[in-house]
């Protein structure tokens, strides 16, 4: 029972982080209509920025959220403006051209990181990195708890943005129907670029939250790219609430898989769920939850 509870809590906590990764992806998927296969790689950029701030300036990773996330946001804007946007007007044999472009972008980001920082494993050893809080026989890692709380705060903030502001309404409108949104006077081009920036910023933030309890190396990204699209499909395309549900389901399913099946199969659990959802529940959790 304790093992069960421990697993469940760990799963929920990591699920909160996954949710932030997933929301970024689901926004991009909803508005741009593409899978962002550079998602994890952009997260890696955020992690390296925070690592640089920590190592050279001694800025705590949680504080560097305020420094690194805007930079990642700008990176996202830059990438979508100069690399993704031009492709929309172009004719090509494969409609997946933009997706392939994100693959190229991801590759260049990883190799740049490898070039600058080498392939060595890096980590941020803060004073609280290995602290735990004991609740009876269950222990909770402190950085994970902090990450979870900040992740929830980020999510709530994003919801305020999406639901209450003009920008948020424009984003949702563009995601629902691009042409109709354009007719209503929304500059879909601007929204598209901004959305990619916001998605990048979110995943960058998730990476920084993960930093105190994770190793950092140039190839850290791809596994999170995969998790991100698993969450997105699991939650239902373009639905932030679905992404939260998807993130938590994935987090819990993974940790249970790791505990009760085998550690090695941890990453396979999500992928199997993903295939099952694609085939049997194409609308994702959104369809079930009716949100």
């Amino acid at each position, binding site marked *: 029972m304790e093992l069960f509870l421990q697993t469940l809590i760990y799963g929920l906590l990591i699920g909160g982080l996954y949710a932030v990764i997933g929301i970024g992806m689901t926004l991009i998927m909803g508005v741009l209509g593409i899978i962002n296969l550079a998602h994890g790689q952009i997260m890696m950029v955020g992690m390296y920025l925070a690592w640089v701030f920590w190592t050279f300036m001694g800025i705590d990773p949680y504080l560097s959220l305020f420094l690194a996330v805007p930079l990642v946001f700008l990176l996202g804007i830059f990438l979508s403006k100069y690399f993704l946007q*031009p492709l929309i007007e172009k004719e090509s044999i494969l409609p997946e051209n933009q997706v392939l472009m994100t693959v190229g972008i991801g590759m260049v980001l990883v*190799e740049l990181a490898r070039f600058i920082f080498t392939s060595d494993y890096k980590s941020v050893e803060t004073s609280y990195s290995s602290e735990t809080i004991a609740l009876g026989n269950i222990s909770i890692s402190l950085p994970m708890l902090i990450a979870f709380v900040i992740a929830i705060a980020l999510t709530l903030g994003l919801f305020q943005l999406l639901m209450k502001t003009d920008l948020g309404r424009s984003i949702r409108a563009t995601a629902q129907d691009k042409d109709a949104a354009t007719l209503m006077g929304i500059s879909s081009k601007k929204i598209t670029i901004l959305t990619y920036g916001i998605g990048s910023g979110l995943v960058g933030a998730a990476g920084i939250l993960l930093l105190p309890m994770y190793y950092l190396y140039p190839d850290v990204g791809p596994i999170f790219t995969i998790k991100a699209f698993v969450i997105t499909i699991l939650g239902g395309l373009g639905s932030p609430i679905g992404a939260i549900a998807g993130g938590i389901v994935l987090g819990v399913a993974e940790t249970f898989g790791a505990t009760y099946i085998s550690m090695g199969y941890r990453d396979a659990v999500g992928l199997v769920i993903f295939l099952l959802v694609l085939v049997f529940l194409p609308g994702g959790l959104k369809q079930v939850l009716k949100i």
Partner: protein
Amino acid sequence: MKKDKNKPAFITKIELIIIAVAIVLPFVFNFSPYFQGLLIFVLIWVILGTSWNLLAGYTGLVSFGHAAYFGIGAYAAALPYYHYHISPWWGLLTGGIAAVILGYLLGIVVFRLRGPYFALGTLATAEILRIIFGEEEWLTNGHSGILYMTTWVSKYPYYFTALILALGAVFSVKFVMRTKAGFYFLSIREDEDAAQALGINTKKYKNISTVISTFWAGMAGAFYMIYMGFIDPEVVFALHNISIITILVGIIGGVGTIWGPALGAVVMVLVQEFFRSSFFGLAPSWISGMHALVFGLLVIFTILYMAGGILGDWDLIRKKLSFLRKAEVSE
């Protein structure tokens, strides 16, 4: 086949020249097994890229998981050896077949999916296989991989085996694209619903395309095992190093052209080796760290400025080049 005067010859002169050059090339590099090894790698990528191109470039099924077929092919050659000491050379028979079976089974699941979902479905499958083959140690020896003492030291037998496979892949694609099935593939790529409405059994033709494509990917995997003598799941099921690079080879050379992936394979290996070796020691050694970076930039450039790839946009490139030449003359 019926004789048709209007139909261009199956093998053109340029293709004959390419084949002749390919036969002579290893003898030219007789002095260096290193260069001969590079040539063999080019051929492996020719097979993989061509195989991907039939599925993605001609049929519109953009697979992000070609490593699944490559890996299955490699393990089809390696597993009988590991368990029963049956020569991996039999893999050139079983590798392709195993990949076709996997492709067909997968088709049942992923053919329900379209566009990006298909891409993700294939990607997920390859990743699942990578994890399973790494975990089930009783079957595959897990991450320790399977080792096999290669048959010959000389590269020639391997080179010509690979050359036969590569030509087989290229010309089988060329052949099928000249048949009715080829036109059906194109119609599926352009508009699957319209194709279906016209009475084309899209599922059947997607399967035919998959069978040919996966067969060659599996053969490439089997050959890789025979040639390298060592495989492990992280190598042959690699997401980046196999699945993604396969796609990039296709894009750079030209999606939906017969020789595009072959050209892409040449470009990819050349770029990588030039940089990996720091231009054979001529440039400062830090350049060797940039081989993948340069290739990535090349991919971005290709997608941005010549979406059809080098061969697909050949007319466009030639126009730009001839403009340069004229400008030189006029000056």
